[in-house]
């Protein structure tokens, strides 16, 4: 049962990702990416991590993709311009190298997992929001605070780059 669910979800995730890449319309791409995010969220659920499931939905599907769509719609930039690549050999080469990386990753990934994954009891305990919150404020306090500064800088950056520069 779980395996079937996993296979279906994984298939949806992959189809969403590939369709996102090949789609010629930016809004369609965004929607396929949304599909991919939703599938990833379900995968988190299958891994006994409901907290990550909701965070994935709220942050990626609910906030980031909405902003993407908003910008694409506002600029009316949904149509991809069909200018030919100036460096013709780049695309096939990139495809080839990407494919090679994919093959290597799959082979390595399949061979790499030698031990069984942790028990689901341990996983449930690990993914409990209470535990995660406690971890963030004890062991990972330093990275947590640094994240705050990064967000502050992002805000500063938006303000600085957006206001029309008054020349001095």
């Amino acid at each position, binding site marked *: 049962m779980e395996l079937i669910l996993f296979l279906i979800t994984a298939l949806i995730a992959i189809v969403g990702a590939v369709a996102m890449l090949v789609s010629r319309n930016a809004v369609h791409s965004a929607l396929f990416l949304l599909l991919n995010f939703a599938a990833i969220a379900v995968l988190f659920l299958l891994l006994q991590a409901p907290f990550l499931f909701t965070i994935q939905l709220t942050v990626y599907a609910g906030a980031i993709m909405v902003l993407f769509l908003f910008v694409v719609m506002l600029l009316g930039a949904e149509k991809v311009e069909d200018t030919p690549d100036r460096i013709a050999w780049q695309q096939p080469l990139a495809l080839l190298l990407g494919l090679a990386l994919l093959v290597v990753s799959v082979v*390595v990934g399949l*061979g790499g997992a030698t031990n069984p994954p942790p028990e689901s009891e341990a996983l449930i305990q690990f993914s409990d929001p209470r535990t995660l919150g406690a971890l963030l404020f004890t*062991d990972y306090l330093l*990275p947590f605070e640094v994240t705050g500064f990064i967000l502050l800088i992002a805000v*500063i950056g938006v303000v*600085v780059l957006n206001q029309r*520069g008054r020349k001095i």
Partner: protein
Amino acid sequence: MFQLTDIPRLLPEILLLVLALLVLGSDILERWGRTPAAQLERVKSSASLTAIGLGMVLFVALLQSGYIYRLPETAPVNFFTNIIRNLQSGGPGGEPIAGAFATDHLTMIARLLIIGAALVTSLLCLDVRPSAHPGEFYALIIFSTLGMCLMVGANEFLLAYLAIELTSIPLYLLAGYFRNDPRSAEAGLKYFLFGAISSAILLYGMSLAFGAALNGVGSATNFNDLTRFDRIGTFTASSGGLITLAMLFIVAGMGYKLAVVPFHSWSPDVYEGAPTPITAFISTASKAAGFILLFRLLTKTFPAMTGSPTLDTAGGWTAVLAVLALLTVVIGNLAALPQTNVKRLLAYSSIAHAGFVVLGLLAWAAAQPFDREQGLTALLYYLFIYSLTNLGAFGALALIGQQTGGDDLTHLRGLSRRNLPLALLFTVCILSLAGIPPLGGFFAKFYIFMVGWQSGATWLVVIAVVMTIVSLYYYLRLLKAMFIEPATDLTPVSLPRGIGAALAIAVVGVLVLGIFPNLILSVLERV
């Protein structure tokens, strides 16, 4: 677990944060300062606050490290000695803070280097006028410095990644700060895109390493500390392909940040387009921090796959680094030859220098522990000298660009007749980059080559020496333009105090550390 007693150990970082917020707030009344004179005052106040503040932070960090003055045990107890004692109790040594931030000698030394570089950069910026928002401009420099300080001490994946972001995001913004200048905007965008992709690659590598470690742990219940470098090193010692893949991704991601060939293509454009003092900062402090983080990552996370510098056994990160070093040294130097824009030329030159530093990293795989320590010392010494020199060179270029209106080779013509002291200062920096004795650049290169030779990477050293000789050609072209070619325009170029002070620091540093390297080597050897 974070403890209150860890706060003195993080003092320089906390001070940097406070300073950044102060500088940010110092410009909060901009609404009442829109006349040109008032705006100039705003720029000056923000810049001076930054320079003075960074100077104070550098002083605190220096005092804390205890390299210059260490309070004797027998000192009398009074107000001042208590302060110093408390400060120095947070000095080098001790377990990493919350397992995430190491405060060993390496961190202390790198912290001094980075805060020093930021101080020189802020001096360079004293006379540069960022368009609007001066407060934000200087605050971003300090935020970036904070990120680098965290980066050199990072002992854990999450902190390492976030520190890289904290370093890079302000730099993206600073590179694109002159929004109305298309070159600056291009630099900002390009830097951002490459940086984002490289972060993704790095993060992918980190998650693979985490997965490999998780696999190594098996079904243990506690996997909270599996993001620490050494824990991953322990648990992945026996696993094969997965951790190799992780290492490749991490090296590639860091390679983008360090601009080593073949991950360098963004750097000439960014260096050219960014405001020149920012170029100086990007090419020195952020590179130094990146190398130290790479060193920690490779030696602590992947100790089992070191390989050897002689490359007699295939595999290991030394093999990857050796290829990168070779490509970087050759392509960096050859590509610098035809450049006509001085900033691009110096950009390729700093790519080439990154290749030499990678050579120093290779020595860590040597069989003898002595060679390893020598390698690290040589690497740090090289980073110090390179930072000083490049800050000086780009600083001089900033002034020239500002006063002659461009930074092509033609703008350098006849500089010796327009401002002889400036030309001389610039010359010292360029000669040090080229590695002419008795300047610091010579000894740094010599030391790196020596270490490389001893640890067995002979063929690489030979190629590097040849390329050093090639590099003389383009460095001397700069000198030729300044001293021999006739000037098209003989209006004198003034040397403002801020840039003058920065150049003086750089040149004096290069001269003194070049002639008396023991001054700094005694400290560096403690690592």
